[in-house]
């Protein structure tokens, strides 16, 4: 079963937009996971889906990879409708799930063999491709190891090499670097880039790491089942405006009023104990600001906008503010021993004074 390139290319026609999604909706027992999502991905692009947990990222990947049926809307992957030709869609894609889907009984090599066979990679080519993908992900030396002895990062690398062995047109990565250490994370991005470089693979990935999303060519920000922004990272950052200055002073209230008076062209926000403003030409503005403010400045920071600022700007909250993390923080607070201890000695001190 050699993969028929003619069929894969959809009749020899070169497809420019390898993923087309129009007004995609998905309901789970009344819960609207996706509320009319539309986007398209060009060939060879690295397209990122950015959003907090439960925003609809995995649902979208599941629909694009034919694992879940859409409630309504049109979805084409590599020119094939996911509802009517899931068989052809499946042949055109490679998938790396959030959780591992390796057979841990078997060796790395055997996992690749099973996958290649399932996807109809010709036997003659298998050995060569095996070497190629294992070298790419730096697992060649460990090819005879049983997967149960692999670390989390090695498993993820093996999964990426497995997803590449049938030369998919599109590689889907669902949070490819979640739970991995920073070094491995950088490596995995290297593999993603080289996969695109060598095979012109289109890459569609979801992530909740903003710094990672900046590696993408284009990003769709998804929140509550809707795409709230879609553009290149640079353009998205331009939405925020200029550079961001945040500073702390000994008297924030006074500083805020002075700022409003002297620089009426810029908005200023108070976030926690910090004052934050978006300004043009931050480098030049910084010395002027320092002179203009009378209260003592404790700290001051100037930075270029990040996707975190974009997310904050669009949705009015930080990407990390989702519920799971909020409960974690609450837990931390309720078990904070330092606070408990500090209560009593402080009182005593005050009494003495």
């Amino acid at each position, binding site marked *: *079963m050699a993969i028929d390139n003619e069929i894969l290319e959809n009749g020899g026609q070169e497809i420019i937009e390898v993923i087309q999604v129009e007004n995609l909706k998905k309901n789970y027992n009344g819960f609207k996971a996706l509320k009319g999502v539309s986007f398209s991905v060009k060939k060879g692009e690295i397209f990122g889906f950015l959003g907090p947990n439960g925003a609809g990222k995995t649902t979208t990947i599941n629909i694009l*990879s*034919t*694992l*879940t*049926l859409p409630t309504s809307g049109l979805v084409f992957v590599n020119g094939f409708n*996911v*509802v*009517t*030709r*899931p*068989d*052809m869609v*499946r*042949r055109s*894609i490679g*998938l790396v*799930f959030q*959780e*591992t*889907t*390796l*057979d*841990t*009984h*078997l060796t790395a090599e*055997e996992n690749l063999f*099973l*996958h290649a*066979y*399932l*996807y*109809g990679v010709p036997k003659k080519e298998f050995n060569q491709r095996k070497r190629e993908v294992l070298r790419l992900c730096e697992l060649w030396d460990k090819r005879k190891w049983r997967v149960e002895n692999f670390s989390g990062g090695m498993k993820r690398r093996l999964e990426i090499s497995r997803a590449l062995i049938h030369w998919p047109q599109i590689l889907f990565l669902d949070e490819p670097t979640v739970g991995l250490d920073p070094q491995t994370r950088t490596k995995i991005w290297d593999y993603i880039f080289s996969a695109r470089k060598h095979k012109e693979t289109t890459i569609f990935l979801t992530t909740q790491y903003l710094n990672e999303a900046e590696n993408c060519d284009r990003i769709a920000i998804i929140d509550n089942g809707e795409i709230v922004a879609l553009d290149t990272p640079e353009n998205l950052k331009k939405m925020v405006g200029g550079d961001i200055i945040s500073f702390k002073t000994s008297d924030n209230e006074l500083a805020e009023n002075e700022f409003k008076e002297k620089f009426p062209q810029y908005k200023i926000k108070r976030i926690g104990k910090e004052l934050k403003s978006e300004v043009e030409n931050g480098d030049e503005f910084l010395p002027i600001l320092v002179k203009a403010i009378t209260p003592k400045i404790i700290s001051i920071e100037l930075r270029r906008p990040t996707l975190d600022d974009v997310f904050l700007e669009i949705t009015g909250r930080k990407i990390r503010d989702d519920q799971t993390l909020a409960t974690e923080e609450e837990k931390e607070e309720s078990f904070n021993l330092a606070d408990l201890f500090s209560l009593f000695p402080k009182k005593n001190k005050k009494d003495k004074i």
Partner: protein
Amino acid sequence: MEESHSLKHYPLNVRLKSLYIIWYRELLIYWRNRIKVFTSIFLPLLLIVFFGAGFKAIFPTNLLPYDFSQFFYPGILSLSTAVMAMSSTLSIVWDREFGFLREILVSPIPRSNIVLGKILGATTVASIQGGLLLLVAPYLSLELKLIDFIEIVIFLLIFNAGVSALGVFFASGIKKTESFSIFLQIVIAPMSFLSGAFFPLNNLPLWIKYLAHLNPFSYGADGLRWLVLSSSLKKEEILLFTLHPLNTSILFLIIFDIIIFALAIYRFKR
């Protein structure tokens, strides 16, 4: 998991190759698990030798017109292969629990082939075990010609295909391997006791006999008795301890296979 496509898109060679690879993986996993390979041979042998010897002492040959081990051996042969076939389908639950099932589900192969491949794998493993156990027949003074051997293996394939499909049918609804092992014990125990492997069923109270008539294991045990003992014992002697004639057994098992295959595929796709 929703099944979203019609099956007509898959060409025959894709179907056969995907069937082969799923089957191959089952065998590979079985072979990797050396302890399982060993116990699958050792435990039935233990039963045949020691349990058989014990009962032979209780029922001396002058009381029974046949040797107890001749009665016991084909029963244990069928029972141990059936248990093997059914417990091999645990791999479906395992795959689901540890994620590998998703890898197969998104690959471009028909879903029905996942089920068929698993059934075929479990059947093969069980029949290999049966074939190996057949090698001890000469030591129990049973004559087996090559043609008998082939017939027995074919019968084992028919029998275990149905049992494996039954296992897949059960496994499709279960998410945890632990729950499936417990479930298997609950199912296998009554089916084994009413299979006729340990004692003849034809002298039992009527209601138990009715239950036995519904139990595929009893057809497996009786069918094997006819095939294994036909060269060593007379027909009247075999009739003493079997419930079903050979033809009925084969017919029942083939019909059972067809029904349970359809049910297993239907349930798994859902």
